[in-house]
C-alpha cells in the first residue's frame, strides 16, 4: 500500500512538474489552427523583409538610407558577385569558412563581404538590415537541400 501511494505521489509530482514546464495545455506549436488571413499576414511580413533585403543586396541608396546602413564604399553591391543571390549557398551554413578562418554563420559571411570586397560598415548580427539580407538570400535559394557544414 505504502509502495502504491509512493508511486502515485511520484506520478502526480511528475505530472505537476510537466505542467509547470510546458504550461497548462498540451505542448503544441501554436494554440489554434492558422486561418488563411493569418497565413497571408505571415507571408506579407516575410516578403516585405525579402524585398528590403533584395534592395539592400542590390545597393539601393534609398533603402540603405532608410535602414541606416553603409554596405559599400566602392560602388560594389552584393549582387555584383551574386546575381540571383547565387554562390551564397545559405543552406551550407554554419560551416568552417576559409576566408574568416573560423566556424561561421551566414551572418558572419555577410559581414565579411561587406567589410572586405565592399569596404563597407559591418552590421550588428541581429539588426533589421542583417535579417532582411538573410531573408532575401534564403528566399532566393529556397528549395535547396539543407546541408550544413558542407562546402
Amino acid at each position, binding site marked *: 500500500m505504502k509502495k502504491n501511494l509512493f508511486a502515485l505521489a511520484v506520478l502526480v509530482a511528475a505530472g505537476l512538474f510537466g505542467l509547470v514546464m510546458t504550461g497548462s495545455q498540451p505542448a503544441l506549436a501554436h494554440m489554434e489552427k492558422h486561418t488563411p488571413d493569418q497565413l497571408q499576414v505571415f507571408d506579407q511580413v516575410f516578403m516585405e523583409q525579402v524585398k528590403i533585403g*533584395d534592395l539592400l543586396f542590390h545597393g539601393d541608396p534609398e533603402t540603405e538610407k532608410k535602414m541606416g546602413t553603409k554596405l559599400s564604399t566602392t560602388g560594389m553591391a552584393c549582387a555584383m*558577385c551574386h546575381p540571383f543571390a547565387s554562390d551564397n549557398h545559405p543552406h551550407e551554413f554554419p560551416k568552417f569558412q576559409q576566408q574568416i578562418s573560423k566556424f561561421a554563420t551566414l551572418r558572419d559571411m555577410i559581414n565579411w563581404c561587406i567589410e*572586405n*570586397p565592399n569596404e563597407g560598415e559591418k552590421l550588428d548580427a541581429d539588426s533589421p538590415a542583417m535579417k532582411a539580407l538573410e531573408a532575401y538570400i534564403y528566399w532566393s535559394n529556397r528549395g535547396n537541400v539543407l546541408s550544413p557544414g558542407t*562546402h
Partner: protein
Amino acid sequence: MRKNNRDQKPGMTRRDFIQKSLLTGAAAIGAGAVFSGGLPFMNTVRMAFGAEEFTFAWISDTHLYPRALNTRFIEKATRAAKDAMNAKPDFLIFGGDLAQLGRAEEFQVGEEILKEVTVKKYFIPGEHDWYYDMGEEWQKRFGKPNWTFDHKGVRFIGVDTISRGPDYWTAKKMTPEERMGHMATLDGSVAGPWAGVGKDQLQWLSKTLSDWPMDKPVIVFSHNPFYEYYPPWNFWTRDWREIQEVLAPYKNVTNIHGHTHQVLYNEVGPNNMRSIGMLATSWTWPYAPEGLPKLTVPMVRVDPGEQYDGVGWGKLTVTADNVSNEYMMWRKKADIFCGDSVSDCSPGHNPILSPRIADRP
C-alpha cells in the same frame, strides 16, 4: 597545371575530352607566365590557310567608376593595359563596358588608362557604356559601334549587340540615371532581353562578308555571345539564330565576346562557329544556374577577398592555321579550372535560384 577530373564531367567521355581539348583546351595563366608544371592549354581553334602569324590583345569589362569612388577597378584596368602592351600586339580590341554607369567622367578615366596602349585600338560598346545617354558620349569618343577591317589574311568584324534594347523607360518616364541603373543590374528584370543585333545590322554583316572567301578566317567581336547561354542575365544575343545563319556559309568563324566575366567556350551553328568568352578585369560573374555549354571546362571559384583573382585580359595569337586564346588571368595559384571537389567549382553551387522580387511590378 594540376590534373583534374574534367574528363569525367557528365556528357563528356575521356575520349571526347581528348578530342575536344585539341579545340577547346583550357587556358594559360597570366601571372608572370609562371606555370606550375605541364603544358599550358589554350583555346586553340584551327583556321584555314592564309593567315600570317601575329598577336592581338583583348581587354573588356573594366566597369570603371570615377577615381574618387573606386580605385580597385582602375588598378586592374591599368595592369591589363600594361600587360597587353608587353605582349607586343598588332592591335587591341576593347570589348565593351569600359564605364560602369556610362558617365563622361568614367570614359575619361578609361581613355587615360588606355593611353598606355599605343597600338591601334578598336572599341565595341557594352550596355554599361550606352544607356545613360543612349551612346552619345561613347560614340563621340570611340566612333561607330560596328566596323570591319582586314589584317594579315583575317577579316575582323566588330558587332554592336547593345544599342537595340527594347524601350523600357519612356512609358515609365525614367530619368537617364534610372534607365542606366536598371541596365546596370545584371539580374534585374526591367531592362528585359536587351542584347540584340537587329535586322539592319544583320544586313550590314551579310554585306560586309559578301566579298570574303568562305574558307578564309573571320573573327567577329561582340559584347554578348552569339548563342543562348542564360537569357535572364543576357548571356546571349536574342537574334542569335539569324546571326548564326548569316555566318553559316563561312567555314572558319570565331566569335570572341565579353559580358560573361568567366572562362567560357562553345561551338555553335551549322559551321561549328567557335565562341570564346573572355575575362573581365573588374570582377567575375558566377556561372549561370543552367545553360553552361558542355564544351566549357569551368574555371575555379575565385576568392572574393583577393581582388586580382579570376580576372585579367586575353592574348590571342593567330598562326598560319589556328588562333589561340590565352586567358591572362591574374591568379596566385596556377590551376584555374574546377578541381575534384564541387566546392572548387562554381557551377555546382547554383542548383536552384529564384529571380529577384523587388523590381517586379
